[in-house]
Structures are given as C-alpha cells and as structure tokens.
C-alpha cells in the first residue's frame, strides 16, 4: 500500500530534516578535526554551507535539521558532565549556538532567494557571485556574532577573546560556504553538468584541498618543531644554570680543602671568613662544615680541651630514635662536625658524629676512596626541626696535603671532610629564576645511588597541575646535569599551555588561506566550466542550424538546377516542332502562301528562334549553377573562328543599318578554346552591340595580343551605341541583370543571362572579360583567352556540325 501524498509529504520532510541534520553533524565533526590552537576554531566550517544548501534545496521548513545537527556537534565539543550545573551549561550553550546556526541558514536562504539565483546557472554569473557573497560572508555574520556571544554568556569565553573568536568563526563559516556551494551545484543542482565538467570542477578542488592540508601539515610540523626547539633551548639554559650552581659550590669546597691543606689548624673565625662570601652569594648552599676524623683517643682529649665558639665544650653526639641528640658511644673512630657556618642556624650539629649515621657514613667512605666530592642521598639535617630534604656533599681532606695514590690507604689517611649542604629545591628555583617564562617544570633526579631513580627535587612554576597535560602533547626533555662523577639528570616538562601559548598564526593562516583559495577555485571553475559549457552548446546549436540551412540551400539549389534543366529541356522539343512546322508552311511546302502570310509566319519563326535562344541560355545557366557546364579546350586558330561568327552576323547588321568590321592582328597566336563556346561568347557580345547601337553606327571586332598580358589574346567588340552608366557597368555581368535605361528595355528584353554566361564561359577558358563604356560614347566589351601553341602537323578542322552547331 503506497502512502497517500498527504501522508508522504510530512514523512518526506522529516526524512529531509534528518538527512540535513546528519550531513551537518558529519561535516561539523570532520571540520573539528582541523581545529587547532590558538583559539581552537575550525578553519573551515562546511556545515554552514550544508545548512544553506539544505534549506535552498529542501525549503526553509527544513531548518530544524540545521539546528539539530549543530546542537549535536556543539554538545560534543563542550560536553562537561562533571556536575549537573556544567551539564546544563553545556546543553544550554549548544542549544543557543544551534539556534544561531539555524537562524544563519534561514537568513542566508532568504537573502539568496530575494537577491540571487538558485540553483546557480552559468548563464548568470552575477547571480552566482551574489549567491556566493550573500550566502557566504554576509550571512556568516549572524553566527559569528551569535556564537561567540553565546559562549561569552555561558562563561566559556573571556570578553577579551570575543573579537578574535568572532573573526575566526566568520572566516570558518565563509570558507565553508565557499567550499560547499560549487560542489553541491555541480553534483546536485546542475543537471546539465557532464561528468567531464563535474570532474573538471571537483578534481582541482580536491587537489587544492589536498594541497591546503599538506601545506597545513607542513606548517604545523614546522611550528611544532620551532616550539620544541624553543623549549629545548630553555631547558638547556635551566640545566646550565643548575650545573653552574652545583659547580660553583664544588669550587668553594675545593678552595676550602686547600685552606685545610695550607693550615694544620683552621680556627672557627678563619673558617667563617672563608665561606662567608659563598654563603652570601646564593641560598643554594645552606651550610658549610668541617668534619674532622677523630680516633677514640683524640675524642677524649677533644671533649676535654676543645671549646666551641660559644664556649661550651665539644661533645661527640649521635641521633637517638626520638630525634634527639645523645652522646655517641665510644667507637674506634669518629667524624665529628668541628666547624659549621652559618653558625647560628646550625650550632646544634657541632660535635655530631657523622659516621654514626649510615647514609652519611656511606658517603664519607666513598668520598675518601674516590678522593673527590661525593653527595649523600637526600636526608634530613640533624639541626632541622622539621623534615626538609637536604643533600650533603663531602670532600675528603687527607694527611700530608695530597690524595694518596693507593686507594686502599686513603681512609686511613683521611684527616677530615669539608662539606656543603645543598638545597636542591633552591638550586632548581634559582635556575628557573633565570627563565622569565614560567612554562617549564623541572625535576632533578639521581640515578646513581639507589636502585631506582630518586627525585632529588622538583619545581613546578605554574599554579594548577593539570591532568591533561600529557593529552595536549606536553614537551619533555631529560639531560644529565654534567657534574663529573655525579649521575644527576634534569628532566624538563612544559606546562599544559606551553605549546598553546607559543603557537603561531602561521598554521591557521595557511589553512585558512588555502581553504579560501580552494573555495575561490571552486567558484571560479564552476563559472568558467559553466560558461565554456554554455558556449560549447551554443556553438553546437548554431553549427547545427548553419548545417541545416546550408543543406537546405544546397538541396534547393539542386532542385532549382533540376527545374531549370527540365524546363529548358522540355521546352526545346515543342519549340522545335512548332518552329519547323511554321517554317514548312512559310516555305510553301504545305501549299501556297501569300505575301502577308509569309511575313507573319516569318515573324512567328523569329519569335520561336528567340524563345529557343532563351531556353538555351537557361540551360547554360542551370549547368553553370550545378557546375555541369564543361568546356573542351584545345588549341584553336582564332582568326577563322572570328571571321565565321562575324560573317554570320553580317546579315543582322545590315538589317539594322550598321557597319560590322573585323580586324585581326597579323600573326595572331592560337588560343586554347572550345570553339562552340567561344563562338557563343562572341555572338552574344556582337548581338548586344548590334542591339544597342542605332542605325548608322558601327561595330568593330578586333583581336590582338593583350598589351598587358602577353601570353593572352584580347578580343574586343566596340560599338558606337548608347553606352552604359557607371553603376550599370559594375553589374553588367551579374546574373539576371538587365540594362533598363534609355527606353531600350522593351525592345531588347531578355532574361539578362547572356553576359553572365559569357563571363562564366570566359572564366572557364582561363580568361577574363570586362566592359568599358560611357553613356552616349559607346561601349567596349573585351575578353582575353590564353594563347596556345598550334599542334604539330597543322590545324585539324573539326566536323562543323559536331559540338558546335546551333540555331
């Protein structure tokens, strides 16, 4: 059962709305793939074009499709289900943006319907341009104002970002429309478009798009590389600063050792004065100390004799489990803290037996054996009330002022250790202070001592530790600190916004300009191929017209030729019989005729001759028209022929009271001619000359070598007749032309074919014919014939009747 149209229509519209929504959604999701920092705006938003085209094709009532599609896309973008409030906010902003998109599509469709043409036709480039401009940049103003304003109201956009967001929004929508319009109109609305034309538009478009994407990828990669290098450089500077900090303290320690080598007994004051500048220079070192190796015997003496700066006696101590200091039990040897600076903060540590604590003891023994500075793992200082990480660096001082060559003997020869307390967090903070930017976090890691890397210190300069820093592609680099013998490394990590804030405009600009260009190419190709197509069709149609007209004309011409021929042919037979019968009666063969009857019959015969002449002319013209008139050229002696024709016209001339004379140049060359046709030409010219000359005048025929063209013979017929006006002279050889002046028409009527036939015959002979005349001064008709060599063995006279006989 097929649904009735009433049922089908709403269902079809629902289908159209859903298809439009889906198309909008898909186009939007695809475009979001290209959303890049800064701004994270899609560089092209073809969904805007799809919305417009959807409403143009499906009608304005399809607008819910745009709203639905837009809602789905935007819900996906800013979806935040962390709380009911954020959820509501996401939905609300998506809804408002969707309304804006629908509004824009409606506005665009209205503009196009009102001012432009849809579907676009290559015949109306202005309408196409208006369609692109109104549907693209103009209509995109709606969403570009509405969308960011919505985001602003929902607190998702700062007011300062508004102009920029609007701009990117506008650019994206405009390009999207530019992109979609050509494709849709070539594939969907332009039913005339050939596959060739579709490909011609689509391929460059696809190529340009691919080029834009490649350009974008290249620029993006370059941009990432640039930021990476910038980050590496910053990390390198931080590393350098940290290394310098450590090295400078080690230098101080070495100098301090030199002090102990230089003097057997360093007084507390001397110690204080020596380290004071280093302590003052930076806060990376919390303290310097002198830790003396004391054998048990000497411990007793020291505890008895030595006083500390405050006057209290030295007590060898060690840490108890509760964190308090207790007297150290008697052991074979101790390493006691004898001096420490700054004293005020660290007095509690004086007398502490460093050897009593395993971490420190391990470091001491390793330092003694290495003969160089060795650091502890992070530990809490004895003098610190609360837990605070510190690293102590020990440098051994040996008896005798130098490091013993034999490593096994070194501990026995150790006199004590100079030590520095390094504050690693402060070291990192000092290093980071040198970087103006707070985009890099660092961690100092020790790989060497413990089985697994131990983080000595870390510094994160930014406020919140965002969990998605890895997802955004934070940069990270790790390098060893570069202090000889130490296995410290510094790891630098960029902040979550580090890349984003440094992202330049180039990739975005490259993509936008590439896509814009692509859109322009699309429009341009659409118009150009459309125009070319139109022109092609026009040319084809016009060519077909011309072909038809030409065919018709040819057929008609052939028909006319046939008619001419048939008519003339059919006329000849009756004329022949009538003429002959009249002649028989006139000759008295059928019985006696009186003088009057004889005269009248003579006139009748004359009329029939005239008729026969006209029919002959008609036949000739018909032949000329159809190209069937041929001349049979052969070398001929001209003079005899001329004589023959002139002789035959003598009678007529006498009748009209005219003198007819022939003058041939001596040794006239032979000519290539068809005797019969040549005679026809001459007779025609002579007949005209006799006809148009009044009694008492004369007609001269001359033949001579042409004075201009020496290889030609010129024959002229000169009369003393009424002459021809200049206007007529030009047209005297035209077909059907008749001289109508001088009241001669009636007397000299003909069809005006004679001279035309003469002209064509002369042309077939390879000569030319022309007339010279002035009214009242007579006329000269001349024609030329190409000269020819006479055949060897004399001139054959052709049979007079064959090929030449005429009435």
């Amino acid at each position, binding site marked *: 059962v097929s649904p009735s149209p009433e049922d089908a229509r709403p269902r079809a519209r629902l289908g159209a709305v859903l298809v439009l929504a889906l198309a909008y959604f898909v186009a939007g999701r695809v475009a979001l793939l290209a959303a890049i920092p800064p701004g994270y705006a899609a560089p092209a938003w073809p969904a805007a074009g799809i919305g417009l085209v959807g409403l143009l094709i499906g009608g304005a009532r399809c607008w819910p499709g745009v709203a639905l599609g837009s809602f789905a896309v935007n819900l996906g973008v800013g979806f935040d289900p962390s709380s009911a409030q954020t959820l509501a906010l996401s939905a609300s902003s998506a809804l408002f943006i969707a309304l804006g998109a629908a509004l824009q599509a409606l506005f665009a469709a209205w503009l196009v319907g009102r001012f432009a043409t849809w579907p676009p036709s290559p015949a109306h480039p202005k309408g196409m341009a208006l369609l692109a401009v109104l549907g693209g940049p103009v209509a995109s103003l709606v969403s570009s104002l509405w969308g960011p304003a919505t985001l602003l109201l929902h607190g998702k956009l700062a007011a300062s970002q508004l102009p920029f967001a609007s701009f990117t929004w506008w650019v994206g929508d405009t390009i999207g429309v530019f992109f979609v319009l050509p494709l849709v109109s070539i594939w969907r609305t332009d039913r005339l478009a050939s596959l060739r034309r579709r490909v011609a538009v689509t391929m460059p478009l696809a190529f340009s798009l691919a080029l834009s994407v490649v350009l974008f990828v290249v620029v993006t990669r370059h941009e990432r590389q640039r930021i990476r290098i910038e980050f590496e450089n910053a990390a390198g500077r931080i590393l350098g600063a940290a290394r310098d900090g450590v090295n400078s303290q080690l230098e101080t320690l070495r100098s301090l050792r030199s002090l102990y080598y230089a003097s057997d007994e360093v007084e507390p004051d001397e110690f204080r004065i020596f380290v004071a500048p280093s302590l003052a220079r930076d806060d990376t070192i919390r303290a310097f100390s002198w830790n003396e190796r004391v054998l048990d015997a000497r411990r007793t003496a020291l505890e008895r004799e030595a006083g500390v700066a405050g006057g209290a006696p030295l007590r060898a101590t060690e840490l108890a489990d509760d964190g308090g200091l207790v007297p150290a039990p008697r052991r074979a040897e101790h390493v006691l803290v004898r001096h420490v600076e700054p004293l005020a903060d660290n007095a509690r540590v004086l007398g502490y037996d460093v050897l009593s604590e395993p971490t420190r003891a391990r470091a001491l023994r390793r330092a003694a054996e290495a003969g160089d500075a060795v650091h502890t793992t992070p530990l809490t200082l004895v003098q610190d009330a609360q837990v605070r990480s510190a690293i102590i660096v020990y440098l051994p001082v040996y008896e005798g002022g130098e490091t013993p060559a034999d490593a096994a003997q070194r501990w026995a020869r150790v006199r004590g250790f100079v030590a520095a307390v390094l504050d690693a967090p402060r070291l990192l903070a000092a290093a980071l202070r040198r970087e103006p930017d707070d985009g890099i976090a660092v961690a100092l890691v020790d790989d060497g001592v413990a089985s697994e890397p131990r983080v000595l210190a870390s510094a994160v300069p930014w406020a919140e530790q965002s969990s998605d820093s890895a997802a955004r592609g934070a940069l990270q680099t790790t390098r060893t600190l570069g202090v000889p013998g130490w296995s410290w490394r510094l790891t630098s990590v960029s902040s979550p916004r580090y890349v984003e804030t440094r992202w330049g405009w180039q990739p975005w600009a490259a993509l936008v300009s590439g896509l814009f260009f692509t859109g322009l190419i699309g429009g341009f190709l659409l118009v150009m191929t459309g125009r070319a197509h139109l022109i092609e069709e026009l040319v084809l149609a016009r060519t077909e017209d011309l072909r038809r007209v030409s065919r018709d004309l040819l057929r008609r011409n052939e028909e006319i030729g046939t008619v001419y021929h048939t008519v003339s*042919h059919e006329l*000849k*037979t009756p004329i022949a*019989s009538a003429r*002959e019968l009249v*002649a028989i009666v006139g000759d008295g063969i059928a019985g006696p005729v009186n003088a009057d009857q004889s005269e009248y019959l003579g006139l009748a015969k004359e009329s029939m001759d005239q008729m*026969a002449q006209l029919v002959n002319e008609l036949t000739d013209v018909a032949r000329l028209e159809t190209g069937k008139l041929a001349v049979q050229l052969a070398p001929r002696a001209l003079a005899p022929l001329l004589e023959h024709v002139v002789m035959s016209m003598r009678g007529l001339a006498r009748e009209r009271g005219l003198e007819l004379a022939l003058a041939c140049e001596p040794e006239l060359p032979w000519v290539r001619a068809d005797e019969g046709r040549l005679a026809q030409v001459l007779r025609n010219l002579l007949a005209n000359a006799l006809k148009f000359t009044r009694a008492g005048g004369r007609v001269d025929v001359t033949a001579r070598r042409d004075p201009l063209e020496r290889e030609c013979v010129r024959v002229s017929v000169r009369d003393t007749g009424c002459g021809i006006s200049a206007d007529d002279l030009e047209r005297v050889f035209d077909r059907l032309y008749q001289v109508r002046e001088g009241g001669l028409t009636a007397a000299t009527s003909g069809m005006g074919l004679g001279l035309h036939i003469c002209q064509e015959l002369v042309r077939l002979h390879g000569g030319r014919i022309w007339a010279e005349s002035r009214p009242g001064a007579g006329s000269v008709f001349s024609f030329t014939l190409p000269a020819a060599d006479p055949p060897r063995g004399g001139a054959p006279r052709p*049979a007079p*009747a*064959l090929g030449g006989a005429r009435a």
Partner: protein
Amino acid sequence: LEVRVPKKVLIVEDDKKISLALGVRLRANGYEVLQAFDGLQGFVQATKQRPDVVVLDLSMPAGGGLSVAARMRDMIDLAAVPIIFMTASKRPDLIEEAKKYGAIGLLEKPFDADLLLGLIRQATGEADAR
C-alpha cells in the same frame, strides 16, 4: 533522262509533331521518309527497310537513339548506314557517345531544317542536289 531513285531516310523520333514536320520537309526535298516512334520500332524499320540515312533522337521510350545505333552497328547490313543524332540536351558525354557510333552529325533541338538537309546530302553523297 536520269531516273532519280529517292533516298530513304528513317526518322526515329518519339515526338510525333517533330517527326511529322521533318517528314514533310524531307519529302518536299525528294526523300522517301520512313518513320518510327520508339527505339524498337526504329530498329525493326531499319532492318526491314534498309534506309540510306537514319536520323535518331537520343532520348526515346523503348530504347534511346544510342541503343538503336549500337544494335545497328552490330549488324553487318546496317553497320555502315550513316546516322544523324538529334537531341534536346547538350550533355558533353552524350556528344562523346554519339561520336563513338560514327555519327556524322549531332543536331541540337531546335535546329534549322537546312542543317539537317545539308547533313543528309553529305551522307548520301549528293552534295549539290538542289
């Protein structure tokens, strides 16, 4: 006194009026005139009557002048009979064809009876009969 045996002229022409006119003219000039009105008749007449001259129209029903001429040339008795063609058309190819059959003349209609008489006299060898 010389007894003049009239020469026989066969006129093969489908147009009765022309045939009539030519017949009258030739008889007036002392010829015996035989008439046929199509090609087949013409050929039959030619074989039966043995004319001295045959005047043939080129285009006729039941065999044009050329086919009559061709058949005559195939027969020993008639092979030497002079032929004069008449035509209303002056197609060059017809003229060529006519020459092939040894015609002594080709007359284009309408023509002067004197021309025909002259040709016939030439054919019968009575150059100056009048």
